[in-house]
């Protein structure tokens, strides 16, 4: 049994709660426990960086400090944006004496300390590179044979820091999905931008980014898109009406990789939060539960 500190981030408590609902039981099934940071705050995300970068780092550093207080070795951040912001803050702490100075002064005023050296990891990395595909294969009760999946990673999990995979053609999730029995379709847009927060602010260019990804997934005859980020999931799943009105219908469900893992582990669909998506997944192709 391993325990990680856990920084859920705002989305996983709001519009992306299906991610948390599927992440926790799936990790538990693999003998990994998470301890949520006590009183964590918003990581700052990209919107904060646009107002004041140093401030964004300070806000994020409070979470790093809270994580260092716990006795676990590593911190898990499932949202791509949180994952990047926390990593970026650590980079800045190392690279820039002025940012480091500001952070330390501010933390001191809050009665906290932070070295900034604890590894911040994404569940995808932990699941494949630490838990390992063999353990996953052993836990699969109902292989997702015949399910064609387009793996969509998003930007910030691999860029700008290639922490555990290639910056344009990552394959970690591909291997995971194969271990679950899925057929992974070739998907060259796997790290193209989904539009980020533009979909809400400037729909025309923002939604067009999402549209291109959805269309490509359909062209590749995928049944479902797998994501590892709550904002990507939201963008690819929630705006189908608007997208259809502008460029034509591209209906395809988008789910979290952890939901697919849960299905392969034969967990309850409802408990995995699958009903929370706008475009429902088709019932799985009949496959007998393995003995």
């Amino acid at each position, binding site marked *: 049994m391993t325990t990680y500190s856990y920084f859920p981030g705002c989305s996983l408590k709001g519009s992306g709660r299906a991610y948390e609902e599927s992440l926790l039981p799936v990790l538990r099934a693999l003998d990994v426990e998470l301890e949520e940071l006590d*009183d964590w705050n918003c990581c700052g*995300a990209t919107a*904060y960086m*646009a107002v004041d970068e140093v401030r964004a780092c300070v806000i994020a550093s409070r979470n790093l400090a809270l994580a260092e207080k716990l006795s676990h070795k590593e911190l898990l951040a499932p949202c791509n944006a949180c994952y990047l912001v926390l990593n970026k803050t650590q980079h*800045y702490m190392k690279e820039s004496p002025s940012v480091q100075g500001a952070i330390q002064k501010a933390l001191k*005023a809050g009665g906290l300390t932070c070295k900034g050296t604890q590894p911040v990891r994404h569940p995808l990395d932990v699941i494949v590179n630490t838990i390992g595909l063999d353990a996953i294969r052993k836990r699969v009760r109902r292989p997702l044979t015949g399910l064609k999946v387009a793996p969509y990673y998003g930007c910030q999990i691999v860029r700008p820091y290639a922490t555990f995979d290639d910056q344009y053609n990552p394959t970690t999730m591909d291997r995971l999905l194969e271990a679950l029995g899925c057929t992974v379709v070739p998907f060259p847009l796997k790290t193209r931008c989904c539009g980020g927060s533009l979909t809400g602010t400037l729909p025309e260019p923002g939604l067009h980014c999402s549209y291109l990804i959805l269309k490509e997934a359909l062209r590749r005859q995928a049944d479902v898109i797998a994501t590892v980020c709550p904002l990507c999931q939201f963008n690819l799943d*929630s705006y189908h009406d608007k997208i259809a009105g502008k460029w034509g219908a591209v209906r395809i469900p988008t789910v979290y990789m952890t939901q697919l893992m849960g299905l392969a582990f034969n967990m309850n669909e409802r408990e995995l939060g699958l009903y929370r998506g706008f475009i429902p997944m088709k019932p799985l192709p009949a496959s007998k539960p393995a003995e």
Partner: protein
Amino acid sequence: MKLKKRIIQYEAERVVGFADEIRNVPGCEELRSCIQCGTCSGVCPLSTYMDYSPRQIIGMVQSGFKDKALRSHTIWLCASCYSCAVECPRKIRITDIMYELKQRAIQERIYPRRFPIPILAQEFNKMAQTHGRVTENVLAAIMFLKSTWWTAFGMWRLGLGLMRRGRFPLHLESIKRKDELNRMLKTLDKVTIDMLHDERGKGEPARGGGR
């Protein structure tokens, strides 16, 4: 034959020292080494929607065309995907430069009027600061009310759909130890004001101002 639109820049528009100011910001140091190869514009998924390509923006900053760069739509269209930054042959962190330009534009209040993105950024900032957490749907509502409120009417279906799926929290998320965060941010204010005096004190006041 169609005439090609050319941008004419006048020497008088240059703000001497602007490039150096930006270069002093952590993450923007390599600005000077841009060779205008255009790789950034080529890989940028949003460049087709931008009024100036990322390469042009870097060029403007390099040569001190501050006003044009800060007024551009480009900086607000940048979705922070970091494609440009990892491909740039001179290792320029274009995304971070875009962030810095957004910050300048907000500070000097010269972004396009009723343009929702700066408003989102500011409201996000406020909410994260006062509550410690962000409740996305409330944030979206405030943002639409402050900028393009009429589009909020078009969003009611999305809100309803989220509500039906239990993804629309009705209470405002908040942290418990707000005083801890506030003390941190107050201290930071003092630190950054000192830093601003050191680093940016020499900068010129914004031109044009207003919108």
